[in-house]
């Protein structure tokens, strides 16, 4: 009954439209921990890039936001079951997901980064020099597609299920260089001794967007408008610089 009431209130609020959005309640779902996007700090408070961005967005939309913790597997089902209204948990925009949910404009994109041992001196964009090198990627990622499409015939590609296995093989000198999601590489490779970043990070895929129910079209318009304002008025940049040393803006 309570659920029904909440749903009814949300529906009413939505029908009322943007003009009376003052006291609108929105529930936003995160899957924690996924540092530095959403995690609990030492005091147990929810924080991170996406959490702060969500807070700024709610302020911009003048909505009362409640943050919900939801495990990844139940994200889209939970959204569709109206347990929450928005997902802001690093959900990459893909065609498959777009069939079930409505995505906002992308609000961040993590680049793929090249990481290698200190001794590696090859230009990764120079195909002739890369000939015969062994490149590690995580299977099925945008990094995998990028290397397969652009360097498939030139380099020897090894595909791994987990980043840990790949890093072990980079350490064990079975791989010359890996191409991996930048934050993953930064955390698992760069903090080890003897490894460095090579070349420039490459932006891949369509980025990460806010996921909403398909029927909430007005909400999507508002979210897009709010994100656009944040990106333009410097709020976004300020939050980004707190968490990242590189550009993830899209």
């Amino acid at each position, binding site marked *: 009954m309570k659920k029904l009431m909440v749903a009814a209130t949300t529906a009413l609020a939505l029908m009322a439209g943007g003009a009376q959005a003052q006291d609108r309640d929105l529930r936003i779902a995160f899957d924690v921990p996924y540092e530095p996007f959403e995690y609990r700090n030492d005091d147990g408070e929810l924080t991170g890039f996406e959490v702060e961005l969500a807070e700024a967005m709610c302020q911009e939309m003048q909505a009362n936001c409640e943050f919900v913790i939801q495990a990844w597997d139940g994200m889209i089902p939970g959204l569709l079951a109206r347990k929450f209204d928005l997902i802001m948990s690093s959900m990459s925009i893909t065609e*498959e997901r777009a069939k079930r949910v409505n995505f906002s404009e992308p609000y961040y994109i993590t680049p793929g980064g090249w990481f290698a041992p200190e001794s590696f001196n090859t230009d990764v964009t120079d195909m002739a020099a890369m000939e015969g090198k062994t490149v590690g990627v995580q*299977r*099925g990622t945008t990094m*995998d*597609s990028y290397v397969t499409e652009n360097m498939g015939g030139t380099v020897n590609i*090894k*595909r*791994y*299920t987990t980043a840990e*296995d790949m890093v*072990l*093989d980079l*350490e*064990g*000198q*079975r791989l010359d260089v890996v191409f991996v999601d930048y934050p993953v590489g930064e955390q698992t490779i760069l903090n080890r001794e003897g490894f460095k970043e090579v070349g420039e990070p490459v932006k891949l895929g369509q980025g990460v967007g806010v996921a909403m129910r398909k029927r909430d079209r007005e909400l999507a318009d508002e979210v897009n408008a709010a994100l656009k304002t944040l990106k333009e008025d410097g709020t976004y940049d300020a939050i980004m610089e707190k968490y990242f040393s590189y550009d993830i803006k899209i």
Partner: protein
Amino acid sequence: MPEFIVEWLNQNDIFTAMTLMEYWDGLVTTVHLVFLSLIIGLVVAVPLAILRTVKNPFVSGPIWLYTYLFRGTPLLIQLYIIYYGVAQIHGIQDSFWWEIFREPLYPALLAFTLNTAAYTTEIIRGAIVATPHGEIEAAKAYGMNWFLRMRRIILPSAARRAVQAYANEVIFMLHASAIASVVTIVDLTGAARNIYSRFYAPFEAFIFVALCYMALTFLLVFAFRKLEKRLLRHQRPVSS
């Protein structure tokens, strides 16, 4: 190729000539890996099984320990230890061993061979121990020495008893080889995983590969049935 197959191939996104080639390469890798490890495993297992039946504990003890270790731990763990563990040994990258352990094929071959040899040793040992006393006594009465007895009486007789259990081991080995894909070998399963992750089509990718394994298994079962018939032909009724 028949018209309808060509038409069907043109219609779907997943089973193009390119992905079928990937599956084919995977099939070749799987057969190569499994065949080699089974052959080497069998060659190693026969002498080990004989030594395992020797009464002297200093001979049979170490072999017991070996089979105990390799049958007592999952093959996946053994593969991880041999593939990732060895790469962590200090200085291995500069030794000649690295030629062997750099690529995933030899570590996988080593893990599979050691594993199947352990199981096969126990299968053959069981068959040797079960040799009827009468056969051995008769051989002794003929004046055969240990070696001749082993070659002419015990091993052929044990082979007949072991063949069914060994057929199972071969099929298990074929299916266990699917884990080779975790150390970046693109075997049948590796090809299926690559194709699955490219098209997000688990049913197509994995059902096709399951059918490939089934076809291989069918061939093995067929071959072993022929072999069994041959080995056990003395048990067949005279009339047939």
